[in-house]
């Protein structure tokens, strides 16, 4: 009789704690039940907690009894171009597999979940460092012989199981395994614990891969205001909530000069202006932290059932800057100047674990929010309004020369965010760019200037130490280092 030329090769890329090892065991068990010679190996990563783990299996799809005592030679290492089934438990893992050449158009069926678990390098960026998942999906369409992609994590959650069961189901359902469904299910049953939930997950994955049930729809894209009218409306509302009707009117007043110009520029200015004018001072934070909607959101996020009280403890650590920010302008300015001179800006922070959900804690935080009417007299208010006016002036000046240049100047407002040291650093970066590239540009060409500003802004967001920005500006960016903090 004619025997298969080669074994079926399966490469599995999973993350620690997702049960990749268990899935390899199921495959081995099912293959053994069918009487097929099979072999599995694994490269454990930093398991348990999202480290990458790899499993490699070879199944020779002929019954041992038909081999006449001969043994197939099975390999322990996958090689590019020789993988029949590539399984990835996460989208970027699928991307990595393709990058490493394990997915080939002649041979490989790619089975992967489309959800994302962000890597630390993606999460830690100061802006948005997330990879574009659509690129991976597009590459899968081109590189794989067949690609089975859907959100398996969602199905696993719905089935009350782990993603490995859904992946196993998708493998079986896509028809690439030499193993019948019954053998796969028997292997799961034989493993015992949690078998019922695993079988539910398996069935869900199987049905979708076999086209008997539609895949879950992709998540809705986040709501983004892009139209000028929407942004103006949102901005107005936010600033009315922030400081009242007059402050909202000031927002509209400030926007007026931009409304006649380029609508895209106006939209970006309106967006940044609204965010900047609603800067997060201690009054704002206290206000947001003591709203009924906030407690409702926390309840939802921690999954508290009705009738279960939730105690909320906030981690606050106000220091000289926070104190100065609500002082009268002249006094606050002197205090901050004194602290900066002595490097004491972070020296006297008071660490507090405030039980915001209790009456005393709530009143403590809420009382700060009651300072709202005082805000326009405060030091921070004056500082922020000066910066805002300066920025608006720069954008307006640039708009007279070139809309694209003005857009780049406007976008620099993005650099100022966060609290404490983070905020100081952002502000220093902003001012450095204003000084070096906006007020004293090295070029007369608006296009070159816009490109330089963009490059510097991206550099400022590239690393928190300001090394990239320093080299982009050709000089070191000095922001206040935490001197003598204890």
């Amino acid at each position, binding site marked *: 009789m004619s025997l298969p030329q080669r074994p079926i090769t399966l490469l599995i890329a999973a993350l620690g704690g997702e049960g990749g090892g268990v899935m390899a065991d199921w495959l081995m068990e099912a293959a053994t039940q069918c009487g097929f010679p099979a072999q599995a190996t694994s490269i454990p990563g930093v*398991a348990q907690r999202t480290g990458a783990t790899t499993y490699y299996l070879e199944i020779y799809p002929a019954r041992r009894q038909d081999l006449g005592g001969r043994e197939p030679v099975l390999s322990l290492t996958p090689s590019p171009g020789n993988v029949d089934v590539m399984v990835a438990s996460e989208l970027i893992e699928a991307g990595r597999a393709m990058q490493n050449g394990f997915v080939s158009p002649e041979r490989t069926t790619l089975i992967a979940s489309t959800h994302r678990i962000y890597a630390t390098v993606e999460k830690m960026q100061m*802006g948005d460092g997330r990879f574009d998942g659509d690129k991976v999906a597009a590459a899968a369409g081109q590189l794989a012989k067949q690609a089975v992609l859907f959100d398996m994590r969602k199905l696993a959650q719905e089935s009350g199981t782990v993603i490995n069961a859904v992946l196993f189901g998708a493998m079986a359902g896509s028809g690439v395994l030499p193993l019948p469904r019954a053998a796969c299910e028997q292997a799961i049953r034989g493993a015992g614990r949690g078998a019922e939930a695993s079988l539910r997950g398996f069935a869900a994955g199987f049905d979708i891969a076999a086209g008997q049930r539609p895949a879950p729809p992709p998540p809705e894209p986040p709501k983004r205001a892009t139209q000028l009218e929407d942004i103006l409306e949102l901005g107005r509302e936010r600033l009315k909530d922030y400081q009242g009707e007059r402050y909202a009117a000031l927002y509209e007043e400030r926007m007026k000069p931009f409304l006649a110009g380029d609508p895209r520029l106006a939209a970006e200015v309106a967006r940044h202006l609204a965010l900047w004018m609603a800067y*997060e001072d201690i009054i704002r934070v206290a206000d947001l*932290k003591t709203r009924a909607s906030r407690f409702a959101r926390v309840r939802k996020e921690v999954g508290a059932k009705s009738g279960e009280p939730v*105690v909320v403890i906030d981690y606050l650590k106000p220091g000289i800057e926070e104190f100065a920010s609500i002082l009268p302008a002249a006094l606050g300015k002197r205090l901050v100047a004194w602290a900066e001179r002595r490097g004491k800006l972070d020296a006297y922070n008071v660490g507090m674990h405030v039980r915001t959900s209790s009456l005393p804690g709530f009143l403590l935080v809420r009382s700060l929010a009651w300072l709202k009417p005082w805000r326009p007299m405060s030091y921070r208010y004056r500082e922020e309004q000066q910066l805002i006016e300066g920025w608006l002036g720069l954008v307006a000046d640039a708009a007279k020369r070139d809309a694209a240049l003005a857009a780049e100047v406007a976008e620099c407002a*993005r650099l100022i965010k966060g609290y404490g040291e983070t905020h100081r650093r952002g502000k220093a970066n902003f001012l450095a760019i204003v000084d070096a590239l906006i007020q004293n540009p090295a070029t007369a060409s608006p296009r070159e200037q816009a490109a330089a500003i963009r490059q510097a802004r991206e550099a400022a967001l590239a690393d928190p130490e300001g090394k990239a920005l320093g080299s982009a500006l050709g000089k070191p960016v000095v922001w206040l280092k935490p001197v003598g903090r204890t």
Partner: protein
Amino acid sequence: MSAKRPVAVMGDGGFWHNGLLSGVASNLLNRGDGVLVVMKNGYASATGTQELISSPTEEAREQALGRSAAHSDRTIENTLRGLGVKWLRTVNNYRVREMAKAYREAMTTPEKGLKVIVAEGECQLERQRRLRPGVAKKLASGERVVRVKYGVDEDTCTGDHSCIRLSGCPTLTVKDNPDPLRRDPVASVIDGCVGCGLCGENAHAAVLCPSFYRAEVIQNPTLWDRIVSRIL
């Protein structure tokens, strides 16, 4: 001797496997002036939580239940002292501020010789494994249980992610900004959070931002819990 003190980090598993002899003993013999940090979480190996000579005893673990039991054993400290380490501090790994202070002291003290910081805090997974059956039993019998989870307020988070630059926790991640005016993603704590509190402690110690909160969900609340929660 180097101008700057070198810092070495090893786990307690590594300490007993070869760190003690080829690391510590050799450094003492050669009169090094470095700093050694021993991460004492009580167990060896990433997933197996295999026991070590310095693992907390069964009784200590039972007693500690939801808290760290790592402090109940001092074999590592005693061994280091016996070997001749003069500068030795044991610090709770989750008290970031105290830990930073210990580091600073180790790096700046005029005292010569090997300086060892034992960073103590039981393996969170082991703690979870121990806790889970007990909690399930209590919940089933209607007893009061407090479940802790950390979170980030999405409307005060400005999406700078400095908290993530200080913590590699897999459950501290990012999500789309819910604010239609903002673009950068906000930090978020997802469901796998075991409530160790390191993210909040980091934010606190580094004065990062006021967005972290600790939520204590009281399951099977008592009448008193209900009355207290009604006040607000």
